[in-house]
C-alpha cells in the first residue's frame, strides 16, 4: 500500500532523514518508534504531502505520492495530528461530520449521515454525541478526533490512517482504548501507520515496527525481530532487560541504566 524507498529530507546541511525505506500494507499496523528528533514526525509529514522530500520515492497504491492532489488523498487517507486545538467550539456530532467534508459539497448525503452514526456507534461515544468539544477531557477529545478521521475514510477501499503519537498524555485505559481501536481498524483491512513513544505498547499492538534514530533506519520488522537489547541500546543509549513471559505474547522491556 505504501512503499518508501531511499527517502531523504535535508534542511540546509542537516539530514533529517537519510535513505529511509520501508513498506506498509493493508491489514497491518506499522509503528514508528525512536527518540525525540529522530525524524518520525517529519517522515509522517512527507507521507501527508505537507513537506516535500529532498530525494527518494513514496508510492501510495503503486502511484507516486506527488501525482495525488490533496483532495484525492483526503478521500482515502486520514491523519490524526499530534496536537488538536480547536479554535471554535463544535458539538461532537458536527465535529465528526467534518470528517465527511471531502465527500460532499454543500450538504451531507444520507450515506454521510449514516457513516457518522455508524462511527459514533463503533467508537462507543454515543453518550458524547451532543456535548460540546471544549467540555470533554483530553482522552475523550482524542477519541472524538479519532472518530472524525475514521469517518473520513470509513467507506474508502484500502484506506490509510496516519496517527502521530495518538496516546500522548492519556491515561493507561485511554492509551489502550485508542490503540485497540487502531488495531481493530488494521484488522478490518486498513493500513495504519502510527508514531509511538512507548516501546512496550508498540511491541504489543504493532504488526511491524520501524525504528528511527537521527533520520536513519535502525531496524524494521516484526516486534520479535526489532525489539532487541542491542537495537534499544543503539537507539536510546539505554540498557534494558528484555522480558518474555508466558502470559504476554510479545517481548517487553524494562530499563536498567543509561549507557
Amino acid at each position, binding site marked *: 500500500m505504501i512503499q518508501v524507498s531511499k527517502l531523504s529530507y535535508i534542511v540546509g546541511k542537516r539530514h533529517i532523514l537519510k535513505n529511509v525505506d520501508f513498506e506498509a500494507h493493508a491489514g497491518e499496523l506499522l509503528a514508528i518508534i525512536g527518540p525525540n528528533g529522530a525524524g518520525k514526525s517529519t517522515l509522517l*509529514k512527507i507521507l*501527508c*504531502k*505537507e513537506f516535500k522530500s529532498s530525494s527518494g520515492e513514496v508510492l501510495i497504491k503503486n502511484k507516486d505520492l506527488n501525482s495525488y*492532489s*490533496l*483532495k*484525492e*488523498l*483526503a*478521500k482515502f*487517507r*486520514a*491523519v490524526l*495530528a499530534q*496536537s*488538536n*486545538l*480547536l*479554535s*471554535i*467550539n*463544535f*458539538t461532537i456530532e*458536527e465535529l465528526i461530520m*467534518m*470528517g465527511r*467534508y*471531502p465527500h460532499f459539497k454543500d*450538504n451531507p448525503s444520507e450515506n454521510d449521515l449514516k457513516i457518522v452514526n455508524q462511527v459514533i456507534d463503533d467508537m462507543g461515544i454515543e453518550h458524547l454525541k451532543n456535548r460540546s468539544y*471544549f467540555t470533554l477531557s483530553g482522552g475523550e477529545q482524542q477519541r472524538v478526533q479519532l472518530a472524525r*478521521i475514521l469517518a*473520513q475514510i470509513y467507506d474508502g477501499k484500502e484506506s490509510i490512517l496516519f496517527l502521530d503519537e495518538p496516546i500522548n498524555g492519556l491515561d493507561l485505559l485511554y492509551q489502550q482504548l485508542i490503540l485497540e481501536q487502531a488495531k481493530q481498524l488494521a484488522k478490518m483491512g486498513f493500513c495504519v501507520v502510527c508514531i509511538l513513544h512507548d516501546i512496550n505498547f508498540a511491541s504489543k499492538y504493532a504488526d511491524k515496527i520501524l525504528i528511527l534514530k537521527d533520520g536513519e533506519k535502525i531496524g524494521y520488522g516484526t516486534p520479535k525481530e526489532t525489539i532487541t537489547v542491542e537495537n534499544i541500546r543503539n537507539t536510546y543509549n539505554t540498557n534494558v532487560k528484555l522480558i518474555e513471559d508466558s502470559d504476554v505474547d510479545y517481548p517487553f522491556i524494562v530499563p536498567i541504566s543509561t549507557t
Partner: protein
Amino acid sequence: MKKYIRIIGLLLVLLAIACVCSICIGAVKIPVDSLFSIVLNNFGIESEKLFTAQQQAVFSSLRLPRMLLGVLVGATISIAGASIQGLFRNPLAEPSLIGISSGASLFAVLMIVLEARFFQSITAIFGYYALAIAAFVGAVLTTFIVYRFSVKNGRTDVTSLLLIGIAINALVGAFTGLLTYIASDEQLRNITFWSLGSLGGANWKTVSALLPFSIISIVGLLLFGKTLNAISLGESQAEHLGFSLHKSKKLIILFAAIGVGAAVAVSGIISFIGLVVPHILRMSVTGNNRFVLPASAILGACILVAADLIARTIVAPTELPIGILTAIIGVPVFLYIIFKERKRRISG
C-alpha cells in the same frame, strides 16, 4: 441544520422589523399605513393616498437609502469580521481592531487630501467607485501585512496581532492628524467623518457605490463556510481533509477586504460590529461557520440599522456618530472575550 435555518428565519423577521422602524421613525413621522401606501403607489398600484408629499420625499431620498446603506454596511462588516476571525483562528481578529479598516481609511483619506491630479485621473476612470477601490487596496495591503506578521505555522500569535493593530491604528491616526494641517475646510469635515463612522452620507449614490462590492464580498465569503470550519481544526488538519489553503486563504482575505474597504469608503470606520455580532452568535447558537457566516450578515444588518436609528433620534435634531454607539455596546463584549480566553488558557 434545521434548527439553524429556523434561527436564520427568525433573524430575517427581526431585520424586517428593524428596517420598518428605521423608515417610520424620525423627525418626519411616517406611520406604517402611509408607508404601505407610498410603496404601493411607487409600484404604480392605484390606491388611496394616505401620505403627504413631504413624507414621500423623506421616504425616497432620505430614509430608504439610509436604511439600505445600514443593511449593506452592517451585513458586510459583520460577515467580514466572522471570516477574518475564522481565518486567524482567533475571536479577537476584528477588521477595525487589527487595523484593516484603518488601512482602508488611510488610503481613502490620502485620496481626498492629496486630491492631486493622480486622484482626478483615477476618478475619471472609476467615477464614484474610486474611493471604494482606494479603500479596498488599503484593506488588502493591511490584511496581508497583519497576517504575515501574526500567523506562524497556522497559529495566531495574539500579542503580535493586537500590537500590529495598535501600530497601524496609531500610524493612521498620525497620518490623518498630519493631513488635517494641509486639508481645506471641506476636506476636514470629510476626514472627521472617516474616523468616527456615520451613515449620514447616505444617498442613492453611496448605496449604489457600495452595492456591487457588498454583494461580491458577502456571496464570496458565504462559499467558505466549510473551509473556515476545517481551518478551525488547524491548518494542516484542514489540508488533511483535502482543502488546499494556499488559494482559499488569499480568496478569503480578498473577499473580506473588498467588503471592508467599500464599507469604510462610504461610512467610515464603524468599529466593534464585526467583533460583537459573530461572537453573540457563537456564544448563543454555535460556532459552525455554515451558520455563523449567513447569520452574521443578517444580525449585523439588523444591529447597525437599529443603532443608526438610535444615533439619529436620541439627540435629535443633531446626530450622534454611530461609532460611539457601537463602541459602547462593543467594548464590554470585547473585554468579556479577553477574560474568557484567559480563563480558558489557565484552565486548559
